[in-house]
């Protein structure tokens, strides 16, 4: 949904993974919306996801939207906004810096030019900037990066994040408004203390990025001619034309570009039929790697080629011969590492595997399992 009205509102996007982050994000969005209401704005929030976030480690985005004093009426709806709308982007799990949600392949896709980024991480803001430059941005960015280790401020990472986000969102909401909206929480005293400390302690740097400095910039094609808008009658579906469109949709780096590439009703494959994978191939229209926090790495020296990992992989993401992980489909569940008899598979954090970074702020699968007793 694209309209000037949406851009005139103030948007907070909260990226996270899995059930525990969902609960945290809902608390963050609620507290900040309530603070916005206290500050005299209209406010609402909602969650978007492509697949069920109840499943362990799947990413989601919470949006909290604040009214503009000039536009009295805001439209409380669940929309995936198109255009440069986000003022603040909060990230609860830093593995999302490398690969964001399925809606937003780039973390800063849809961000305003002066957007603030708030990340729960043990890494320095400068390192976060390097990651954003490499993976998450494709437009000019003159904003700020805030980092904090949210776990430091209590078991519930929401409070630490609320403090840091409140700082990033000033002056729309002030820390006083935020504290006021925490009044009805159970562990009020602890919460207020955590929020205040995090507000004071989060680190921040100013950022100035040119689009052309970003590695992803090259992949974002200039807006292609919209076939549907040009007035030409779309070609009715056939296997080849459909596959071509499907490939373009799968490769679109931004949400806006993806929406422009989606097929019309004449071009779409009929009924419940879908084309794509040939026997032995995987469906390129349904890559699922965005769920991964930990990356299975096979040590070939130790591997005895027993094929157990191939057999047990629930997503069929490990090729049979030779044994090889297809990282476009691996969700990082770790079953392969568990069944491997020769300890040939290790599960480093995405940031460690890709960038050699030692991220300490993340939710392990074990933690998720314990808390939710799956």
């Amino acid at each position, binding site marked *: *949904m694209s*309209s000037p009205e949406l851009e005139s509102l103030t948007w907070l996007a909260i990226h996270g993974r899995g059930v525990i982050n969902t609960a945290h994000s809902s608390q963050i969005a609620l507290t900040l*919306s309530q603070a916005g209401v206290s500050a005299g704005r209209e406010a609402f929030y909602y969650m978007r996801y492509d697949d069920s976030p109840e499943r362990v480690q799947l990413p989601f985005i919470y949006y909290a939207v604040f009214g503009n004093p000039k536009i009295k009426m805001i*439209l*409380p709806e669940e929309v995936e906004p198109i255009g440069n709308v986000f003022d603040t982007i909060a990230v609860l799990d830093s593995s999302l810096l490398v690969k964001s949600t399925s809606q937003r392949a780039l973390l800063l896709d849809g961000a305003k030019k002066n957007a603030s980024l708030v990340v729960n991480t043990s890494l320095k803001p400068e390192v976060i900037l390097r990651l954003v430059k490499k993976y998450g941005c494709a437009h000019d960015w003159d904003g700020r990066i805030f980092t904090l280790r949210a776990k430091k401020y209590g078991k519930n990472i929401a409070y630490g994040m609320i403090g840091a986000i409140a700082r990033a969102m000033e002056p729309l909401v002030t820390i*006083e408004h935020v504290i006021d909206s925490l009044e009805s929480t159970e562990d009020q005293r602890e919460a207020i203390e955590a929020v205040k400390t995090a507000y004071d302690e989060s680190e921040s740097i100013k950022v100035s990025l040119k689009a052309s400095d970003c590695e992803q910039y090259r992949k974002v094609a200039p807006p292609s001619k919209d076939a549907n808008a040009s007035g030409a009658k779309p070609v009715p579906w056939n296997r080849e034309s459909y596959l071509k469109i499907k490939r373009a949709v799968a490769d679109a780096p931004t949400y806006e570009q993806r929406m422009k590439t*989606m*097929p019309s009703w004449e071009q779409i494959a009929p009924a419940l039929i879908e084309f794509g994978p040939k026997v032995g191939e995987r469906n390129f229209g349904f890559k699922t790697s965005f769920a991964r926090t930990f990356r299975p790495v096979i040590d070939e020296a130790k591997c005895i080629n027993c094929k157990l990992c191939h057999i047990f992989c629930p997503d069929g993401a490990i090729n049979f011969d030779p044994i090889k992980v297809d990282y476009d489909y691996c969700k990082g569940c770790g079953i392969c590492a568990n069944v491997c008899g020769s300890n040939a598979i290790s599960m480093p954090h995405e940031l460690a595997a890709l960038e050699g970074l030692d991220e300490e702020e993340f939710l392990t699968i074990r933690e998720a399992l314990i808390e939710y007793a799956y």
Partner: protein
Amino acid sequence: MSKTSQVSVQKSVQKRRVWTGARAVAEAVKLADVDVIAAYPIRPYTGIMNSLATMIAGGDFYAEYLVCDSEHSQFEVVKHASAVGARTFVGSSGTGLIYGTEAVITTALGQLPVVGVVGCRSLDDPGNFGMEWNDAFLFRDVGWLMNWSKDPQEALEMTLVAYRIAEDERVLLPHFVALDGATITHVASPVIPPKKELVDRFLPPYKQPHPLDPSYDTVSKAMHIAPSLIGPEQRKSLDAAIKRAKNVVIPEAWKAWSDITGKDVDPYFESMKMEDADYALVSMGAYSRNVDYIVEKLRETGVKVGSLRLKYFRPFPTEELKNILKDVKGVGVIDFSFSLGSPGNGSVLSNEVKTALYDAENRPILMDFIFAGGREMTLTELENSTKQLIESVKNGRVDKPVRWVTVRGDDE
């Protein structure tokens, strides 16, 4: 504990809570002091049952909370609970609701004032959980009352008023409160909850006049009675009940609600700038707020357009609608449903509006804007649709009365 914050926030503002529609309805159920709740999960209505379970677990209020094995059992449970005199709450969405169909229909025939929520959801093409009205519309003919809320605040109020209407002895019909899935159920926006004392004054305890209880000498009708013996009479008594609801009970209930809250609300419509309107946009539910926005925007350019939101779909306020639209030249129906192969190949709501206007003295030009399929509406599309309506009225004819607005591709 002492208050640590030094805040200059007005306390009156603070009273507005930011709640999702699901949470707001759960609060209404708590305020109504419901006895029996039957739950089975399906997005997007599930949030209501989640909130209720949390409240009950936390000791906020007590109700018999049953997690059933399917939607069919859900509706059976509340049907029977209501028959013996319990105030009940139930709900579902999309295909789940349809799985409960048999029990849903017999609840109406049993004249049992169950209140249910429909979190409107697209009928299932794979994984579609967008907003569409077809799931609720499937039950439009069987005797359930149905209203459509526009935001969490109204969802809360409509749920409370629904109990009063459904349980009125002149009505005794089940009542669906429709919440647009996602756009109301999952979007949190400011709500001012009514005070418990007010609700208690408004909503007397439910008294089933003929409870299915041996001490009242009641038994249920034998299932194998030849259908022709009571079939027509049973339906006719529902017909009489829903007419009484339409003409007497619903206006009464909303009048009582207005008296208590101090807000003067029309039971059947919310209209904006309709007094001198040449063009009317008729809608229901959450997106009527977008319609209001577009109406305000176009009014600034001098176009005499108005917005009319239907609050009740069953009973359908035919005479009232005819009256409001009597001087209007063009009507655009903003419809989130489809009715394939129906007269005009339009959608459900527009067909209803058309029927209502059939014997009007001045029949306006009617256009049907279909937003089916669960995709969200954009303001631009809505504005363009309105302009198409205005142009059609100016030309004095409609080239294409039914338009699929959000669809990609040629709208043939």
